[in-house]
């Protein structure tokens, strides 16, 4: 090894190191962008109803409700209510969704009969989550602090004032507003009230 070669080595190494850094950086952007794009794609209504379990049951029922069609044309799509907006919560929900993929493969609810047989269990899963998160996804749009109770009807006003006093959360009363309610056995009637 000559002297001139020895002195050239560190410079070359630095260039390689810098090159590797740039490549990693760009790869990171591409990977993250790709990851995010795929995740956002799985967060669209078109993706949700690409499974017939969703399209033929809950999505059909949903079309009769005010969150789908109303006078102002503002609407909520599946992920607006069922996927958290915050990144950490969203990731956790997306990982939980892998269980849903398993049951899609198993065909657990692949007929309306099977779906309706499990409707109470599925509904209670969602109710439990919304109760635990203090109806976080509702509040992305419906903020209690900016709700003008005086502009509500008598029934809504009374219920909201009472609800506020009792520390209730949205889902405590607003069950079955976007999808049909399950058959609730008499001995479990309290779950609905």
């Amino acid at each position, binding site marked *: 090894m000559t002297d001139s070669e020895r002195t050239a080595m560190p410079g070359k190494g630095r260039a390689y190191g810098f090159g590797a850094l740039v490549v990693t950086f760009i790869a990171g952007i591409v990977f993250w962008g790709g990851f995010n794009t795929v995740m956002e794609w799985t967060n669209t209504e078109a993706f949700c109803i690409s499974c017939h379990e969703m399209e033929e049951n809950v999505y059909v029922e949903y079309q009769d409700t*005010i969150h789908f069609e109303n006078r102002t044309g503002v609407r909520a799509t599946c992920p607006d209510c069922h996927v958290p907006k915050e990144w950490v919560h969203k990731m956790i929900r997306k990982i939980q969704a892998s269980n849903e993929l398993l049951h899609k493969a198993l065909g657990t609810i692949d007929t309306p009969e099977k779906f309706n047989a499990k409707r109470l269990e599925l509904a209670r899963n969602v109710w439990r989550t919304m109760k635990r998160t203090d109806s976080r996804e509702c509040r992305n749009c419906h903020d209690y602090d900016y709700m003008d109770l005086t502009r509500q009807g008598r029934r809504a006003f009374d219920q909201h004032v009472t609800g506020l006093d009792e520390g209730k959360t949205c889902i405590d009363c607003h069950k079955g507003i976007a999808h049909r309610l*399950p058959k609730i056995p008499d001995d479990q009637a309290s779950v*609905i009230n």
Partner: protein
Amino acid sequence: MKRTAALTLLLAFGASALPGILAAQMATPMRGATPLDSTNQVHDFKPMMKERAPLERAYVQQPPLIPHEIDGYIINANSNKCLTCHSWDNYRSAKATKISLTHFRDRDGTELSNVSASRYFCTQCHVPQVDAHPLVNNAFQPVDVLTGR
């Protein structure tokens, strides 16, 4: 021959006059005088009445009217939205009218402890109202017991 001609003439006259006579006898239909083969003017949609005090009965056997909107209220084999306020369980907390005890009796006359299945579908009898004038004016008056006269 002469008689036949006269009869034919009479029949022809009768046949041509018939539509005119029929038209004169027919009352103006509810859709107005617009001929069937043309489109008549569409009336405005009548909005449902917002919630209000209970509406008076027009006759004593009348099922009470619903004085609020019921859009999106589902009544099916799984659930009954009306009963979440009007059932005997819930009417106090909801400050709603409770359903009549007569609804606890089944078709065999057996008294039950809750709503009979035959009375489960509320909107078979109870309906909300729009603020609309009657299509045909009439002189119907409620009986005295309902008006308090």
